[in-house]
């Protein structure tokens, strides 16, 4: 009964936002890398899409990978996030990194990651990616039972890699375009589709599934992000140093990375 309600709400949200998710994505999709981007390793099909390596006939490569009608507003938020990173996030994460040993932070990361397992499993199913669903299910069972409630990750070593599927990708697999690019305060680069995806995944959050207090995810999200940032300090600085226009560089990298994530599922299926 509850599931029905959730599905109905999701359908409503998708329908409401569908007009924004125009054909803009189709252009990005056509030019996007269709090479095997199989980060799970061995299973990728060994076929290269020739046109993808053809930089000589590449007018579509001139196109931005995602439409950006809100560029002015996005740039402002980007600037705010940049300031937030250097003024707040970085100093806090630096202290956090010093205070907690890497092993502990890795265990926390595994724990937070296990919390996202229902969403990954659900999205594998929604994408009819049954190999992925089984892998995610087995992996999570092993990590909970053999990994002390998800603090350790023995499953990856057993060739049961994490299936990084989310509802934004599911919508893409269903043929819905990304819609315009959006930079959210604190959350960073996103798209209309991805934003709907956050909402969809929230329904598969264990806190929601178990009907726990609302403030738990409110505490969990920043803690998870802080922990994650402690492994990635210096990456943003390097990214910025390499870019002539960090805003554009970030936008295009975001779109390309998401496209790869969306397509990598298809490779598992093959």
């Amino acid at each position: 009964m509850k599931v029905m309600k959730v599905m109905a709400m999701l359908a409503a949200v998708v329908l409401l936002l569908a007009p924004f998710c125009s054909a803009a994505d189709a252009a990005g999709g056509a030019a996007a890398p269709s090479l095997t981007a199989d980060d799970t390793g061995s299973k990728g099909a060994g076929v290269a899409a020739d046109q993808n390596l053809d930089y000589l006939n590449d007018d579509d490569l001139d196109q931005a990978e995602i439409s950006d009608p809100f560029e002015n507003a996005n740039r402002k938020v980007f600037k705010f996030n940049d300031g937030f990173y250097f003024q707040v996030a970085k100093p806090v994460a630096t202290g956090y990194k010093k205070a907690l040993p890497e092993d502990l932070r890795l265990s926390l990361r595994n724990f937070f990651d296990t919390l996202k397992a229902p969403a990954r499993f659900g999205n594998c199913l929604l994408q009819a990616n049954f190999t992925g669903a089984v892998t995610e299910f087995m992996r999570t069972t092993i990590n909970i039972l053999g990994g002390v409630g998800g603090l350790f990750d023995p499953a990856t070593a057993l060739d049961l890699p994490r299936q990084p599927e989310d509802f934004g990708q599911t919508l893409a697999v269903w043929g819905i375009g990304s819609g315009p690019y959006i930079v959210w305060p604190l959350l960073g680069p996103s798209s209309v589709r991805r934003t709907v995806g956050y909402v969809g995944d929230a329904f598969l959050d264990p806190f929601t599934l178990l009907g726990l207090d609302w403030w738990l995810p409110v505490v969990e999200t920043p803690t998870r992000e802080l922990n994650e940032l402690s492994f990635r300090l210096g990456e943003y600085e390097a990214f910025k140093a390499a870019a002539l226009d960090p805003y554009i560089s970030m936008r295009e990298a975001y779109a390309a990375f998401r496209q790869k994530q969306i397509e990598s599922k298809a490779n598992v299926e093959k």
Partner: protein
Amino acid sequence: MKRTITTGLLLALVGLAALAWAAGPLATVQARVQEVLTVLNDPALQGEDAKPARRDRLRQIAGRMFDFGTLARFTLGSKWRKLNSAQQQEFIQLYRQLLERAYLDKILAYTNERIVFEKEIPAAADRAEVQSTVVTATARIPIHYRLLAAGDTWLVYDVVIEGVSLVRNYRSQFNSILATQSPARMLQEMRQKLI
């Protein structure tokens, strides 16, 4: 006498075969990366004092690994023709410096990451992609090299990290600059960035 000739012929054949075989894309990338690792692990080049020396050595390897001219041309795409030939030459130089500045220090910071070479995927007769993964204690980063046949060897013209193509990412940045500014201004911006 006869034996000497036979041996000589055999040796010549082996030599020819070796030449014809040359190194494939995967072997080429692997060899260059091995050279980088050798420099990084060279006991004579350790410590802060030797950093400029290490950087120089890496720069030399990069010169043999990348086709910076093609890289620059592909990055500007159709806008390449907007630059006159002097500007094109300067662009190649500045772009190379920009990339070195951005990535050399990251490579120098390399510690014990494991680099796994997975496969090479031929594209056209003269194109190939070599797929590798850098495995650290906390992450797995897929790095794919795109190569162009150049005589008897292969040169890298694009690097795709986690699905993000270096050439394509820079192209969108340069496109955005050239949409409102002249090539001369763009080069000026690049020079500024390099100060």
